[in-house]
């Protein structure tokens, strides 16, 4: 198990920049839009995002194991673009729903607390978007075809790639009203972009 954790960790360390490229367009605008110039608040958002991502990774670890056991080594072609669309749609929703000033704000409404865990949801939909290193890990898990080993492997991979994302917290002192407005617009643009790319691949 430890060996597999290390293997996943090393894969994560060696390919962390690719993971950063895949996750940063979602995390950074969100952090700008919703973060505060208070470390604690941003750490909480970051932690929720990571937990959402972890949930997605664990889900894929189980799915990869099941697929490996069943001898199916190919994912349906629509999974990746659909994940991209879901991630984009959530980002657009977050950007449009959280209008500054007197506009509607999800956090102020009397919603079920579950729906307020938006960084968690964003982390999850980002996690189900398969980047090349993730795909490499996924194939390894299919080969292993063992749930416990798969989870151990992906936990290592997750831990290493999460390290690459932690620098987003460095922007904390500069997150003020204007940065939040820029973040919201960036979230909107990135969401539309993800939706467009996903839809394009689905249609293709």
């Amino acid at each position: 198990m430890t060996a597999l954790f290390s293997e996943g960790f090393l894969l994560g360390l060696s390919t962390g920049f690719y993971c950063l490229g895949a996750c940063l367009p979602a995390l950074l605008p969100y952090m700008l839009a919703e973060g505060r110039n208070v470390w604690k608040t941003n750490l909480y958002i970051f932690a929720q995002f990571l937990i959402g991502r972890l949930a997605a990774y664990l889900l894929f670890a189980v799915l990869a194991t099941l697929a490996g056991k069943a001898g199916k080594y190919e994912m349906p072609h629509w999974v990746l673009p659909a994940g991209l669309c879901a991630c984009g749609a959530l980002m657009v929703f977050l950007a449009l729903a959280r209008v500054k000033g007197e506009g509607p704000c999800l956090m102020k409404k009397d919603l079920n607390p579950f729906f307020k865990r938006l960084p968690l949801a964003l982390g999850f939909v980002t996690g189900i978007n398969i980047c090349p290193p993730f795909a490499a890990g996924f194939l390894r898990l299919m080969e292993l075809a063992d749930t416990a080993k798969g989870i151990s492997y992906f936990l290592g991979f997750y831990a290493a790639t999460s390290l690459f994302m932690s620098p987003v917290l460095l922007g904390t002192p500069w997150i003020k009203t204007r940065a939040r407005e820029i973040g919201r617009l960036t979230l909107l643009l990135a969401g539309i972009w993800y939706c467009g790319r996903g839809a394009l691949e689905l249609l293709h």
Partner: protein
Amino acid sequence: MQTADSIRSKMFSALLYAGLALLVITPVSLALAGKELSFVYPLAWSLFAAATAFGIAYTGRVSGFRRVFFTVSAAAFLFRLKGGLLTGDTLGYCFDAVARNVPYCHISMASFLPERAHEQYIAMKIGYWDIFWGALKLAGVWLLATLAIGPAWCSWVCCFGGINDGFSAIVRRPLIKSGKWAVTLRDMPAALLIFMLLASLAYATPVFCQWFCPLNVPTAFADPAVMSAVMKYALTAAGIIALAIAPLLTGKKIFCAYLCPFAAWQALWGKLSPFRIKTDAANCVNCGLCAAACPMNAMKRSPEGKPEPGAYCNMCGECVSACPRGGLRYTVAGTALPARTGIFGSLFTAEKLHTFAALVLGAAFSSLWAPAAIKKAFELVFK
């Protein structure tokens, strides 16, 4: 009433200013364009720039002459580099995805940054520096220009800006007024810049050049995938609307003010330059003429309630010319230079120094295409 002496003094002063501009621009223009063309064409371009300098110095008004120079430079860019496509000239391709050439366009610089940094990292590891040299040269030129003129790059040098500026000046009474949308979308360039950087990092490709550039028509043609070609055309069409049609409707530089990631990039790094436009609160009567004249929608309210140039001001001088009471002025590091008189003294103002630097850089940079465009136009008309 001007006396004959004062007119003569102004004339000498303007001639001196134009002569100095000619002296600096001509060798650069000859060096950049003279190797492939007859010396006549770069010289003609330098004379045009010097005439602009003369007009500015003689009338004391920057905006109108700047606009003519800037628009002609951008039109020459379009004529030379994009018009050439009609005759099979491959110069029109500003980005070669296969050969991975360094593009000449400054807007792509931010978009290219993550990818180039990664390439440089690899090049360093194998001790091969040449791969990055072109991009380094472009970055070096940009840095020098930014230190000298700051955000004025967008109002004197940029080929996109010139097209946008020219169209925005055509209609005097715009159909669409700058309302709430102008404020809501004010930070769109910064958002686009962050998005472009992140997306370029994620896809390891210059996203702006491939997807959003209004001059991307030839690259979109080259895309064999139908769906992505259609998407590229749609985005390119949106860019062209922002570049040419929206300015006609609003009288504002819509592409530069709301869609150009480089505008945000330059607004950020432009702070390195000492030149600024500042409001002189004592002369300001809050008439709002400066805000109406600003093609970038960059004016904001100061804490005292007076209009002042905001972060996206690109120092075009329109507000300075529009203010009837001299409520806005060019400054160096926030202060106006001491007033001097005489032929030489009148040239040592913040406005003249800034304009000189911006004009020289604009004319030098456009020497990459303008003399060749003059030659082509000459051949078209007379041969």
